[in-house]
């Protein structure tokens, strides 16, 4: 008897994913979902072809073959960075003399405006568990942890319930599918820091340490949790694996739109002042315009789109003229930008770009772990400058100073990817909407020189 009570009704992830037309052949992530969002537990999951991918992987393939298939299928990380999962798996240290390590599921979904993993975990926990079993097999992991955002209490209940079901059914524990493969997993809820979504900070947090990221190399695949080889994958990434195992690479490659180098489908969303905000499983390569207009119903109240962020607070502000961009990594790569999580945010022309970016940087500055200087001290400075500009108190030179911070907190200059992700939207906001920043700068004639403003001179 389980002591855990699952949450079977009233899930707040009930949404457009539950109502959109979907089919097993085209919607590997969402076809099983019930229209009322009632969660799919073991029996129902099995009745809908559940655990067949895991069975095939464990009973028919070697771990290296599984990794190779995932690599060939081209499943890319769905957490925002888009690193190919199969490549990551192939770099995990395995073999004689190397201890079996950990498979960690990054379920610390804290990217502002991102709400896809919650839906998967609340409604379809076994899909994640199946993905983890396959990943663990491929990476020779002996323990899995789902590092879950603490506020996701419904997801925690349903995951824990599903883990117990799986364990009771012999899908977790010793000798899974009679193959001799052992693997068990646990749900670990985080204490609520954005940085825990960074894979090495997640590892530190899991170990009970401060959630500061770790320097790489060594990569987690060499030395991760408790010093052992460790793989960290996002929820949605892992949820893509069972269907690839069950249906094959060719099928998977057929899912995306032409022109997309990313394969499969992606949970995409659109929020902001759109008519029908929501979350949909859509093929890679669909245009942002289609998502906005065909799924989200376009802008509401006759508002005009001014700009959008394609995939979370850490992605660039793109002007409305980019709306025909293809939602896939190469689509964004062409304009030297990133798709992120593909859960887009629409800004209409009544939106102050300065206010939006100030709000984002306040969040990012607060969520800096405090380890490296450009992030810890650069982001808060940007906030102070943005507040000044927002209030019309900016001074000549402030925009250039912001641009310096954008550069200094950019890729390669900071300890981890938090600051580059945090600051790149600011760079794009200045690049595309500089006039809005300039409007917040007081003209130089009113601005006191630093010497004249010195309090001891009585002029302040």
């Amino acid at each position, binding site marked *: 008897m389980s002591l855990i009570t699952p949450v079977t009704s009233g899930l707040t992830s009930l949404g457009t994913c539950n109502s959109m037309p979907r089919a097993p052949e085209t919607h590997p992530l969402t076809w099983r979902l019930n229209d009322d969002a009632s969660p799919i537990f073991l029996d129902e999951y099995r009745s809908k072809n559940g655990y067949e991918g895991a069975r095939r992987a464990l009973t028919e393939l070697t771990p290296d073959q599984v990794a190779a298939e995932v690599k060939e299928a081209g499943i890319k990380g769905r957490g925002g960075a888009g690193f190919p999962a199969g490549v990551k798996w192939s770099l995990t240290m395995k073999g004689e003399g190397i201890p079996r390590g950990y498979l960690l599921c990054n379920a610390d979904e804290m990217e502002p405006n991102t709400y896809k993993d919650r839906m998967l975990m609340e409604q379809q926990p076994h899909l994640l568990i199946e993905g983890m079993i396959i990943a663990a097999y491929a990476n020779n992991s002996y323990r899995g942890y789902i590092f879950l955002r603490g506020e996701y209490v419904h997801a925690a209940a349903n995951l824990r319930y599903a883990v117990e079901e799986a364990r009771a059914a012999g899908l977790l524990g010793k000798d899974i599918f009679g193959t001799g493969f052992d693997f068990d997993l646990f749900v670990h809820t985080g204490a609520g*820091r954005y940085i825990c979504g960074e894979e090495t900070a997640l590892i530190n947090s899991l170990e009970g340490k*401060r959630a500061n990221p*770790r*320097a790489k*190399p*060594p990569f987690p695949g*060499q*030395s991760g949790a*408790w*010093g052992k080889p460790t793989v960290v994958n996002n929820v949605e990434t892992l949820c893509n694996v069972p269907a690839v195992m069950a249906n094959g690479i060719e099928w998977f490659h057929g899912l995306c739109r032409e022109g997309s180098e990313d394969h499969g489908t992606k949970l995409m969303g659109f929020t902001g002042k759109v008519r029908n905000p929501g979350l949909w499983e859509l093929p890679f390569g669909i245009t942002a315009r289609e998502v906005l207009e065909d799924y989200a119903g376009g802008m509401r109240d006759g508002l005009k789109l001014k700009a959008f962020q394609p995939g979370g607070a850490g992605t660039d502000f793109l002007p409305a003229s980019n709306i025909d961009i293809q939602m896939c990594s190469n689509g964004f790569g062409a304009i030297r930008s990133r798709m992120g999580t593909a859960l887009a945010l629409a800004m209409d022309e009544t939106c102050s770009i300065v206010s939006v970016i100030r709000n984002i940087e306040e969040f990012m*500055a*607060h*969520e*800096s*772990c*405090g*380890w*490296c*200087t*450009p992030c*810890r*001290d*650069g*982001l*808060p*400075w940007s906030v*102070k400058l943005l507040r*000044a500009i927002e209030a019309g108190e900016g*001074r000549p*030179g402030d925009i250039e*100073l912001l641009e*310096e911070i954008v550069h*200094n907190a950019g890729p*390669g*200059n*900071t*300890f981890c990817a938090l600051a580059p992700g945090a600051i790149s939207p600011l760079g794009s906001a200045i690049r595309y909407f500089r006039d809005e920043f300039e409007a917040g700068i007081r003209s130089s004639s009113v601005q006191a020189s*630093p010497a004249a403003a010195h309090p001891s001179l009585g002029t302040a």
Partner: protein
Amino acid sequence: MATIHIDGKEYEVDGADNLLQACLSLGLDVPYFCWHPSLGSVGSCRQCAVKQYRDKDDTRGRLVMSCMTGIQDDSYISIEDDEAVKFRASIVEYLMRNHPHDCPVCAEGGHCHLQDMTVMTGHSKRRYRQEKRTHQNQYLGPFVKHEMNRCIACYRCVRFYKDYAGGTDLGVYGAHDNVYFGRAKDGVLESEFSGNLTEVCPTGVFTDKTHGDHYTRKWDLQFAPSICHGCSSGCNTSPGERYGEVRRIENRYNGQVNQYFLCDRGRFGYGYVNNADRPRLALLRDPSAEEADITLSVDAALDRTAERLKRARRVIGIGSPRASLESNFALRELVGAENFSTGIEAGELERLHLMQRMLRESGLPTPSQREIEHHDAVIVLGEDLTQTAARIALSLRQAARGGAVELAGQYKIPDWNAAAIDNYAQGYKHPVFMATVTETKLDDIARGTYHGSPDEIARFGFGIAAALDASAPSVGDLDDDVQRQVADIVQVLKNAKRPLIIAGESLRSNAVLKAAFNIAKAVKGAGLNGSLTLVPSEANSMGLAMLGGESLDWAIKEFAREEADAAVVLENDLYRRLPAKRVDEALDNVDTLLVVDHTPTPTCLRADIVLPAATFAEGDGTLVSQEGRAQRFFQVYDPSYYRPNDQTHEAWRWLHALHTTIEDRKVDWTQLDQVTLEVANAVPALAGIVDAAPNASFRIKGQKIARSPHRSSGRTAMRANLSVVEPRQPQDKDSMLAFSMEGYNGTHEPRQQIPFAWSPGWNSPQAWNKFQDEVGGSLRAGDPGIRLIEPDADSDTRGLGYFSDIPSAFQLYHDRWQVVPLYHLHGSEETSARAKPVQERTPDAYIALGAADVETLGLDRASKVRVRVGKHELLLPLRISSQLRRGVIGIPRGFENIPVDIFGEWARLEQEVRA
């Protein structure tokens, strides 16, 4: 080795280094904060960014953090690249955003790494115009002051305090730009190494509170290369003086000894030098006269003392293990070798001689502190090192951590990648086994601990030796669980590449030392590449044992038997060594008691004549540390410059002057070098001490070495309260140092003796890197000091055989407890215990009892216990020990009011009935 190209120049560098180490070792200035030679790299501050190019055709390159980037052969780097220069300036600008404008009132100013780096990167104009964040500061005890607003979040403090020194009560709290480095709540920092925070912190968050109480800028201090007198470790120090007071002690880098770190006794225990009650004038006491002590001129003092000594039937000289070899030798010359006592209690002297034989004849070398860090299995017999030779305990921690470094190294994680090592190794340590009477502050790194009485610890050691070599005498009746532990240790020893055995004087047990010898001999016999560390109790115990001389007991007996009627006591308090009654009875028979000392000890207070001796701050001399390293300490200042009547002189000067006055001849020894040479000539074992430091004629480019930084100010004014006429600066004929800012102070010419660390642009202790052959390595001129003891190559055939006098098993009585000495870094040592801040950290005397005995006796935490030992009766508060065995009580040694002759004896206990 690898070749790298930096800004168009080609360099050969150590391929195992990271880029920052390589650049600094080449003398190139790359700014940094979070990296430290002893702490490694973590990549947090981003200050050391440089440009790295793919190859020689790459013109774009990318910024890398030099501390986190390994050396690649044939790589191309730029420090001067425009983007790198701008980035580094931005980093300092970010760090300075919240840093207060308080340099003028900050104790760090003038030796501040943050100041240096700010200047180096060219950040000179603050663009940040908004509010600064502020923090509350904490009370951290009498040693360290906390000012968190200055923090730049480099994380070095916690990395030193926790990761390097094993402390648990300093942490980092909060996140983003509100990270806080401190304790969970206000309170005294518990670590014995807390003072290093003042040097590890790159700015003024942690500063020396004792210095703050009489603050002087670094550039206004006068320094000398000195040796800590606080224990036998021989740490190198850099005391700073102004206005005739020692104002602070900082670490002096010695790549083989203390490297960058000191213990808190060594750093904060200097207050006795400044105490107002010190004898500064020659005093004559006439017990028959009513009036107070008569002060004498130097000449009168010599004449009247000479007269009294000449009148004496026989004069016995009592030397001291806390005085220099030169002073002890001068005393020996004065009284004659046949009348010279080392001033060391007989049992301890016997053990010191035993230690010397062990070091020569076990066949194992004794490692320097640095070398201790490179052992991969350690057995400690009896010593509570953190309290008796703290700096060695810190080295031992690094030996244990070496396990992690080695493990990670097999995984290709370089030894500088500190965080990666710890993440990978997950606390794996080289095995350390601690056999001590009670819990110690090294237990946390121990793979195994054994707690027993001193005899049991010896038996444990004998057991290990016997299990390692069947021909070693066996113990026979060891308990099964002890035998299992012994077997484990033997297994570890056999697998070790470099095992180390540590024992020492603290338990006052010949058996413990002999057991350590048997292990050492067995290790040697097994063909293992082992080492042996022995820890005597005082700064010059080793030196005195090598100089030779009778025990203090012998001297006391001679007086008691009226075989002598005059005593010359050199820097020694006899009451700390032998029972008061015996000392009193002996001294009652002494007609003339001459004490040459700097401290008003009880012995000094009994003296008929007192001649004021120099402390380490006012005189020079040579000490021999536990590893047999002879090291010279040099006079920091001339007290008579500030106090023209001050008669403080090195004891050897007084004693030699007295000698020549008695013999009515001219003074021969006018320079320290003459005395040192005489010692070397007279005592073959000490022949090497001449080379412990360059002599007084040493010059660099014709100059002496400056004791003060060139910015030193106020020289013409500092004596104006006495006279507006500026006298000539004191002339130092004893050493190569000048009492002046004039003289050589550079880093270019190699030199061993460095009064203070400074190099242009480097005002903080980080300047030590400029004197080293490679950062964190040895001084370019070689590390100071010379080792005097090396193992005898033929020890196998000629040396000591196994000891077989194994003590019998511990006898438990229901009404008697054996008294064992416990030690405290703050309180157990004589001179530092006179420093006020140390007194604040010294616990009240107590009796420690194991939990089982406490229960049997029906005691509780608040109990006071009456302890009867022999004729002594003590009433002491109870301290409950988790590890003290049944039948043993611990009492702190070296504390006031704790008699010296209770240790090893048996006590009866009685609970004090509370009203």
